[in-house]
């Protein structure tokens, strides 16, 4: 150590020693700040700038015109965009509802000590380890009316003809087909978070409740639910943000169809940006989505903090 210190050139050592704490702190955080600016902030600012232009990335040599708020106005008055928002809201609300319900139920069951508990946990979490693109692809086969296992299972349970309905080709069923697959895939994630919450509740609280002769139902509502709630809310936040961005699974499964029934905002945005190459328009679209998600997430995080503080 002494030898290493001794090897440092005296001028440099003096110079470093001469730096203030603040300067040293800046030296340490500067690379991170630089990366943050380069990777996050600059693209954001650039996107905002492009959103006021008619720029097309596939025509780099064309004149770029400043068109003010025209892109924003077009997006917000486009009925098709509102339909994709509706499709996204349907997907978001129902997937979160089912995942929370089933995830919590599974966590509650898994939390009870029984033989093979670990094995079942491993089996249940398998779907979330798969690639969404792969999941989307193989569910198209499961939903196939002539050979699909899903249709045969429904036919077996209801006595209907398996070829009489098509999950991904029917306007009424297609939005549910993506909800089912996403729920199948991501319920284990919610389950794991709920399980962490359940396991964090000290047994002593339940023992105290037992001493007070609280019923199981009362224990559930007054101990389990309030203490798991912050975890559950965290799971909802993660799933909400993820599903707002949902792309690969839906593209593989329905491609946004039939019609635009399952065209979520992210799918629509990708088509505008990288198929139609309306870069300025797509930038405005992205900014609107960013503000929406950021705004909603901020409100939600405040609510989450309030729940935690209770």
């Amino acid at each position, binding site marked *: 150590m002494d030898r290493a210190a001794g090897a440092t050139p005296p001028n440099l050592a003096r110079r470093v020693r001469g730096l203030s704490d603040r300067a040293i702190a800046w030296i340490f955080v500067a690379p991170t700040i630089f990366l943050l600016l380069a990777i996050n902030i600059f693209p954001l600012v650039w996107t905002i700038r492009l959103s006021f232009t008619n720029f097309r990335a596939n025509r*780099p040599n064309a004149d770029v015109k400043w068109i003010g708020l025209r892109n924003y106005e077009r997006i917000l008055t486009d009925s098709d965009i509102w339909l994709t928002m509706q499709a996204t809201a349907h997907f978001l609300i129902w997937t979160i509802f089912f995942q929370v319900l089933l995830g919590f139920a599974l966590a509650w069951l898994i939390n009870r000590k029984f033989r093979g508990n670990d094995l079942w946990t491993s089996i249940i979490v398998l779907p979330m380890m798969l690639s969404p693109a792969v999941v989307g692809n193989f569910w198209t086969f499961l939903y196939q009316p002539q050979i699909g296992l899903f249709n045969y299972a429904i036919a077996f349970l209801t006595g209907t003809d398996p070829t009489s309905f098509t999950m991904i080709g029917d306007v009424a069923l297609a939005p549910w087909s993506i909800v089912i697959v996403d729920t199948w895939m991501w319920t284990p994630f919610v389950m794991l978070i709920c399980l962490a919450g359940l396991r964090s509740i000290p047994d002593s609280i339940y023992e105290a409740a037992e001493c007070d002769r609280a019923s199981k139902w009362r224990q559930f509502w007054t101990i389990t639910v309030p203490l798991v709630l912050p975890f559950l809310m965290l799971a909802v936040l993660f799933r909400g943000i993820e599903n707002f961005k949902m792309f690969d699974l839906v593209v593989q499964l329905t*491609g946004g169809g039939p019609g635009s*029934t399952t065209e979520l905002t992210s799918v629509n945005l990708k088509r505008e940006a990288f198929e139609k190459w309306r870069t300025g328009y797509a930038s405005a679209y992205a900014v609107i989505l960013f503000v929406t998600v950021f705004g909603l997430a901020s409100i939600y995080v405040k609510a989450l903090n309030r729940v935690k503080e209770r």
Partner: protein
Amino acid sequence: MKKTHQLTAVALTAASAVAGATAQADDLTLCWAAWDPANALIELSKDFEAASGHNMSFEFVPWPNFADRMLNELNSGGKLCDLMIGDSQWIGLGAEAGHYVQLNDFFDAEGISMDDFIPATVTGYSEWPKGTPNYWALPAFGDVVGWTYRKDWFERPELQAEFMDAHGRELAVPQSLEELKDIAEFFQGREIDGTTVYGAAIYTERGSEGITMGVTNALYNYGFEYGNPENAYELEGFVNSSEAAAGLEFYKALYDCCTPPGSSDWYMSENIDAYKSGQVALQMNFAFIWPGVHADANVGGERSGYFPNPAGPGGHFAQLGGQGISVVSYSDSQGAGLEYIKWFAQPEVQARWWELGGYSALRAVVEDPGFATSQPYAQTFLDSMAIVKDFWAEPAYASLLLAMQDHVHKYVVAGEGTAQEALDALVEDWVEVFEDEGKL
């Protein structure tokens, strides 16, 4: 601008001559879609490698991702592809965005004449602006939407008799779209050899270009026009005429009555699978599949027949497919690329191309007296190529295509609104695109 093009072409021609003279080996990458003809091209290109000393490699992307992948490559000025067999609709973008090298002077210098190629392929694959002698590609693969049918089923006496009773005519190749629908309806849900079969596999795919490539075969034949022949960008009353709406209604009726369950997002490969597995009596598909159908163990040989898209009340047309081969302007091996095009344009190479399963667009090949009988589908190919019409090839073709995909799919598959509403909405979107482009 023109001078720049000329200088570039002269430089390229010189480069190609120098490359040829010094026999310097280049590594050439040819980009195309991943499909059967691409395998034939690999085989064919071995002759070029042997003759030129250049090494060929290939980048093939499946059709649903082909446009995405390759247009990204071109738009980013990538050097992956030296030669691009790009879709016919890309020609406007390729020319105007400077992705492709203009080939006029090279053709002149090498004695390659566009008069030697099927006129529809020159217009469709090579020219931009359309109707002007500005060439950006050499017609490489002629293709057109046509129909494949189960000849063996059509020839069954009991089915013949039943069809005759029902329709008062023979169960034979349909002469009109209405007749085609009758046949599809006749087969829908029928038991053949203990299996339930269906009428027709048609294009319904939404994500890329599928349903547009299908529905246009009905639209054209009912009277749909892309615009006023006097003013290409005047759309109202042409795109959304009552005749066009009737064509769209026909396609929806065909989808509703006569397609296999679950075929709401089908394109080329799904149709091939349905046909080869014996699910359908009729299959709409591009002609490129015909060699594969003919060679198939289950449905090939005498079991299948081929016919052009049938006529409708408003005319007789078929959707053009196919592509031209272009030299990518970002390539470092443009000289070798031009050498390849020169080699590919030779009549004997084109004849070999046809033998291997590639559809040559060279008139010397297709007008050869033996061509029509050289394969069971050759005459159908010729008849179909004589009635082709193509989608927009504007630089903004992708926006035009996606709008059509969206509105047509909404009506045909999702059953939303009426045909007239779908086409009115399409006109609105297309007008907006052309306004953005400064063409309106």
